[in-house]
């Protein structure tokens, strides 16, 4: 499997900013992730929703990038919510305790969050 560079798109939905993540979250995703998050903050949302539905691979550097986003969000007093994590990465978010600081949503709640209902 060849590494798939991360692409993002950001859109507003109700009081949230949704960041769709497409590709791998590793060292090369640094610039793209931070740019997308800055773009999301410009929308002045109450929360930022990270959509992992099209993410196949997150490594330890990717975890560090997410920790960095979380730290920035706390500074801006913005919540981070996630959805679309595979069972495996959901387990990793629990092991690393990221899930203690960002709510993992799924099902209808997730659909409402990103406006796909």
């Amino acid at each position, binding site marked *: *499997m*060849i*590494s798939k560079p991360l692409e993002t798109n950001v859109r507003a939905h109700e009081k949230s900013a949704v960041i769709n993540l497409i590709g*791998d979250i590793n*060292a*090369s995703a640094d610039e793209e992730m931070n740019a997308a998050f800055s773009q999301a903050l410009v929308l002045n949302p109450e929360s930022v929703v990270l959509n992992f539905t099209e993410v196949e*691979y997150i*490594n*330890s*550097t990717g*975890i*560090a*990038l997410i*920790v*960095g986003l*979380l*730290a920035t969000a*706390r500074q801006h007093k913005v919540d981070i919510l996630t959805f679309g994590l*595979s*069972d*495996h990465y959901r*387990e*990793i978010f629990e*092991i*690393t*305790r*990221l899930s*203690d*600081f960002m709510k993992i949503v799924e099902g209808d709640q997730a659909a409402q969050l990103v406006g796909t209902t």
Partner: protein
Amino acid sequence: MTTQQPFWNRIFKRKPIAAEPVQVEPATKVDQLDFEMAPSDPLLAYFRERPGVVELDSLVFDSPALQILKDAGTVIVVPLMSQGELVGMVNLGQRLSEQEYSVDDKKLLSDLATHAAPAVRVAQLVQQQREEAVERNRIEQELKVARLIQQTLLPKEIPVISGWELSAYYQPAREVGGDFYDFLEFPDGRLALVIGDVTDKGVPAALVMSTTRTLIRTAAETLVEPGKVLEQVNNKLYPDIPARMFVTCMYCLLDSKSGRLQYANAGHDLPYLRTDTGVEELRATGMPLGLMPDMGYEEKEIILKAGHTVLFHSDGLAEAHNPQREMFGFPRLKASMFEHSGGAGLIDFFLEKLAQFTGPGWEQEDDVTLVKLRRTPIANHTNRINGTETMIPNQQWTPIGEFNLPSQPGNERQAMDRVAQLVTDAGLSVRQIDKLKTAVAEATMNAMEHGNRFVADRPVLIAMTRSADQIKVSITDFGEGSQTGSKETAESPDLEAKLAGEQTPRGWGLFLIKNMVDDMQVLEGNNMHTIELLINLETEFKL
């Protein structure tokens, strides 16, 4: 071109046709003219282009072969051509009647050549096959003798020493090489262990091996120090060894009570010592035996402790090639020593590794000799895991597969996918495979980044083995750095501190690895590091 058969020179003498049988008188003069015709000789090209009878007087060009034929008095040549190849010539001198050759004569000769050439070619091939068969038989006989000499001289039994495990394996190549090993037991309980390799193959190598073995045994009766033994053997071997032959040899002396192993090396492949913390070569310098007189041999010694294993080997293993002409190599050999505990089954483990590497139908290039010396562990041996001593039971490991990757960012994706493919039939659950993939990716990144420092031509070797109840993935780098990084630990990172900006957000790799597998071990050696990832098999998939 060297003509394939002597040339036939015939001078025909016409005889009258007689009703009654008559005694044929021999030709007045029949000579055999032997000479080599160079492939570039223009006469050869002329024969190819113009089949049929050739009158030499009509040829005027610079040709050594033409000159030889003319000097010998040849007037006419009838080339015998078969499938475009010159297989012989009929050379005729002046007719006895001194008349010129008639048109009928030439036609007769031409017809004769047409029929004779294929017959001559067939005769040549039959002769060639006979000669080859004789040569094959001779070689087979020689190989039988060589095998017999070697098998007669190799130890019939392995010494049994309390507290020690000794085992040996010898597999000759078809064209027998000159490998040998020997054990000499002394009355005071010491054991000399010898392994060697004579350059060359077949009977000459076997005879030199036999001589060397005898010289070593003789020297060991009166000398104790390994360096002195090799020195004496070298000086006695040097005057009589055939040109361009020499012997690599390692001589070790073990005190089985103390575990002291003294050794000297005459240019033989370095043995590997496996301890609880890694693998290292046993180095001692010295020239091969029989090359130069009056050589000195460095002596070294170590103390072998419980659980320590030494593997002696010949180059038939490290220099084996796979179908892609890649060599098994010393790094792979050393890394494989990391993978196995060193206990029972070590030699079989290497033979399976070799078989997997070379694939089916491998024609063994050289003798393969392996000798294992191990000090028996008291119960179980311990391995150091991130500073913590952990008891690891002795296990038999069977190779599943292995591959290597250049140290380039992103290659960890290949590593995780290839490992997942190789363990497909091992019975791991989807969750276990996902976790193993993440652990492999993280360990491979560490090996590439921290161990090999992203030097692309330093490979990361990834090997999978299985025991009765576990899968093990060993990831080895060959760099100077530490695979785990200098600061990273497997302890749970302080997420609050990271979020507060008091710590770097990084440092998750080793923690992730530890939490993805059931056990892990880090082994550090000289310029190589291995992380072992262990996954417990579910009950129904245990052997």
